[in-house]
């Protein structure tokens, strides 16, 4: 095989693999799940330390993608230990009964460029609702980062009921910002 032929073949191979690259090896340690909300009109944020992701994503074929996310609610960090304890209770997440929140994507489509959109079912505290999460995908070699966000109303899931239902103190709107890193297997 001469050099030109070899280079041609190599180029063809790289091309083929970048086309069909599928990211499915999620690196949880490099991923994060942050939530933001307002309390007395003060913007605050927190995070979940433990979650699991099963996903398969080929940027060229988003329609075949799969994504399932399970969040361990008791791994919450609100920045305040009293609040961390409070939100596990019955009025909030009720983690005794509902230890995890789940997201399952039902469809993922390309929006153009590096932008995509996932539509799926989000289950928290036994309630399942449809959500839409736009996200971007940045590819670097065999690693891709997925950054996106969605907003939900906590009362739709009965999170923070009873005396906490007063939206003047803790606002209804909660934003969820995710950053996932995955590589191809």
């Amino acid at each position, binding site marked *: 095989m001469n050099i030109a032929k070899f280079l041609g073949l190599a180029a063809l191979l790289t091309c083929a693999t970048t086309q069909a690259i599928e990211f499915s090896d999620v690196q949880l340690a490099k991923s994060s799940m942050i939530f933001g909300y307002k309390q*007395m*009109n003060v913007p*605050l944020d927190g995070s979940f330390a433990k979650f699991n992701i099963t996903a398969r994503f080929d940027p060229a074929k988003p329609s075949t993608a799969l994504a399932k996310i399970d969040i361990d609610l008791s791994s919450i960090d609100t*920045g305040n230990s009293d609040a961390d304890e409070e939100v596990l209770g019955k009025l909030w997440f009720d983690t005794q009964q509902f230890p995890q929140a789940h997201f399952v994507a039902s469809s993922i489509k390309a929006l153009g460029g590096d932008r995509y959109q996932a539509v799926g079912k989000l289950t928290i505290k036994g309630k399942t609702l449809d959500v839409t999460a736009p996200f971007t995908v940045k590819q670097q070699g065999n690693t891709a980062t997925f950054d996106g966000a969605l907003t939900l109303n906590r009362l739709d899931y009965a999170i923070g009921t009873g005396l906490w239902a007063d939206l003047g103190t803790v606002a209804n709107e909660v934003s969820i910002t995710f950053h996932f890193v995955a590589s191809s297997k």
Partner: protein
Amino acid sequence: MSPQYTRTAIVLHWLTALLILSTIPLAMYMTDLKLSPLKLQLYSYHKWIGVTVLLLVVARLAWRISHKPPALQANLPLWQQRAAHGVHHLLYLLMICIPVSGWLMSSAKGVPVVYLGLLQLPDLVEKDKALGKVLETTHELLSYTLMLLLALHLAAVIKHHFIDRDDTLSRMLPLLKRKAL
């Protein structure tokens, strides 16, 4: 004719006094509450009152520097003149340092201060839990020192008004001016 404080100085004095004497019991009550919406509301009110005190005290200091207060009673022993001035200066210092330490504490705990729920103040330091704890203790100790000094301040006023029967209090509270004999 006994000298008096200017009307501006008097208004600023009593406004800060009112706010400080309401926010201290408020703070002691709120910190003991179990987490609840009420607790979160009271924390915000405490911060708003505290920031208002800071603004008023800055105005008071500017006024005080540009308007000399009336001289102390002429017959006051030197140690009492020194004590009065010392306490007044420390009160100013604390009225600045306490709200600033509260603001610093809030920033360090990762909770921005939104004045009156409307105006977000800049964070003074990066989020840092350990620093937040230190500032919380600082804020408390400074507040207890302020309470101690306020007690001294009040004791002196009571002594002047009821024992010496001079016009120390009426200079700041003209309502109480004694009728000239």
